């Protein structure tokens, strides 16, 4: 090993990136596979994420002018299995998302929707089958996909850092662009509780405290900051009350604009407004089509929709 490192107690990413350069101080343990698993993270995932190249400068601010339609995606015979699992999480997935279309993935928890989203974002590679991305009819590489995407995950990042940094995650080149940051917050209806971009978040660091809904709007703000050709909403409204949820969904529709958009949702009434719905069960697509087509088919979607509609009717009667 080389000389003494200032990153003595470095997390594993330094060891992975520069195994020869970074030494560990005796008595301070490195991040191990077990250590990562304590953070609910697979070692393989960690390596996969870290292998993705980063270049914030490449994030184009004129994407929408140069590519007004959006990203197209074709998935053929895709199967995926997590390294530690014994069964496939996704089985024989075939679908085509046309540039500029709005698509909803619906289905029960654990049916593979979020895993497919991670694959669409280029974070995981298929075990078998293929996934291809097209921009202006030209295929693009998996490691290039992320720079064309923006996403609001269900478990969106809540960093106890200044507001500025939390919003600028969407596009780090705009970290010092106060106007762009404030516009993004305004678009996400977050400007009512954020007055100062340099306010620190997190009472444990002497900063402000945000509610779940406020965090959600902040996370949406960072998506607004970034111009993209594919917008993904991975059920970020799960923890919100119905009113906030409705607003968040409207925000998603606005956010997507003319670009390709994918939403994962349990609330089927939201799926009514998209071009195509894919119904997942146990890692497979069991139904797909427009809302009207699926209702007419009287399959699983129609059953779930009717159940939810009656539940909403009961709730509104109670209210």
């Amino acid at each position, binding site marked *: 090993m080389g000389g003494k490192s200032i990153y*003595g107690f470095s*997390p594993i990413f330094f060891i992975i990136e520069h195994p020869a350069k970074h030494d560990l101080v005796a008595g301070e343990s490195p991040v191990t596979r077990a250590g990562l698993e304590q*953070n609910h993270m697979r070692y393989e995932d960690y390596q996969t994420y870290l292998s993705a190249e980063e270049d914030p400068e490449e994030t184009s601010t004129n994407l929408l002018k140069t590519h007004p339609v959006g990203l197209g995606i074709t998935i053929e015979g895709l199967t995926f299995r997590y390294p530690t699992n014994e069964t496939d999480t996704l089985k024989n997935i075939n679908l085509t998302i046309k540039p500029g279309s709005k698509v909803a993935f619906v289905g029960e928890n654990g049916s593979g929707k979020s895993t497919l989203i991670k694959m669409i974002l280029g974070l995981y590679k298929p075990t078998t089958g293929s996934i291809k991305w097209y921009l202006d009819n030209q295929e693009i590489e998996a490691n290039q996909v992320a720079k064309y995407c923006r*996403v609001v995950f269900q478990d969106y990042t809540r960093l106890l850092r200044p507001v500025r*940094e939390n919003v600028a995650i969407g596009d780090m080149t705009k970290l010092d662009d106060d106007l762009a940051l404030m516009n993004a917050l305004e678009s996400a209806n977050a400007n009512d509780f954020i007055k100062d971009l340099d306010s620190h978040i997190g009472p444990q*660091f002497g900063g402000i405290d945000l509610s779940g809904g406020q965090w959600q709007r902040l996370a949406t703000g960072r998506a607004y900051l970034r111009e993209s050709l594919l917008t993904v909403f991975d059920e970020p409204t799960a923890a919100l009350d119905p009113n906030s949820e409705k607003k968040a969904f409207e925000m998603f529709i606005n956010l997507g604009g003319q670009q390709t958009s994918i939403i994962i949702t349990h609330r089927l009434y939201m799926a009514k407004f998209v071009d195509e719905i894919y119904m997942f069960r146990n890692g497979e697509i069991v139904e797909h089509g427009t809302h009207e087509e699926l209702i007419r088919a009287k399959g699983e979607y129609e059953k779930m929709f009717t159940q939810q509609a009656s539940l909403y009717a009961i709730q509104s009667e109670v209210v």
Partner: protein
Amino acid sequence: MRNYSNLANIFLLLFNILKRSPVVCILTIIVPLISGILTFFTFSAQSNLINTIVDSARLNMNEMIRLAFEGRMAEYLSNSLKDAPILRELKVYSAFDFFKGIWSDFVLKHYKRRYGVRKYEIKVGMILAIIQTTAIYVILLYLLDKMNESDQVTVGGISVLFLALLPIGGQIMALSLVQFVYRRI
């Protein structure tokens, strides 16, 4: 024949040495005795002096609060950047390197500050050690000079030489060790 106690014998011996060779006696007995007494009674004063010098290079309260904040933030970031959902989102947005940079800046600053204080302490220690060693050398040279003047080697003279060389040897070793540690840092 008079029967003296051991203590009386020692004083008698000292008196005889003093009468025959006052210089050797002063160097072998009086100087170390005075030095010892001074060291013993001024220990707290010396200690306070060194602490004051070192403390001036240490941290004031505001700096400590800032460093504590940065330390907690570095730990928080270290944990957050290993969290799967956070890492996933930061990678999608190409923002991971930015936060990793913030974390490493905190750690770098902390280490620089910590080693800065330690280096200063070592510097002060080295200067004090050099003063001590120089003083011993001066006494040794004075002694050798006196022995040369008297043109005779006495038991007392040899004893003083021996006693003087012991701490010098220790100081040389200590200095070498300090320099070795200093270079490593």
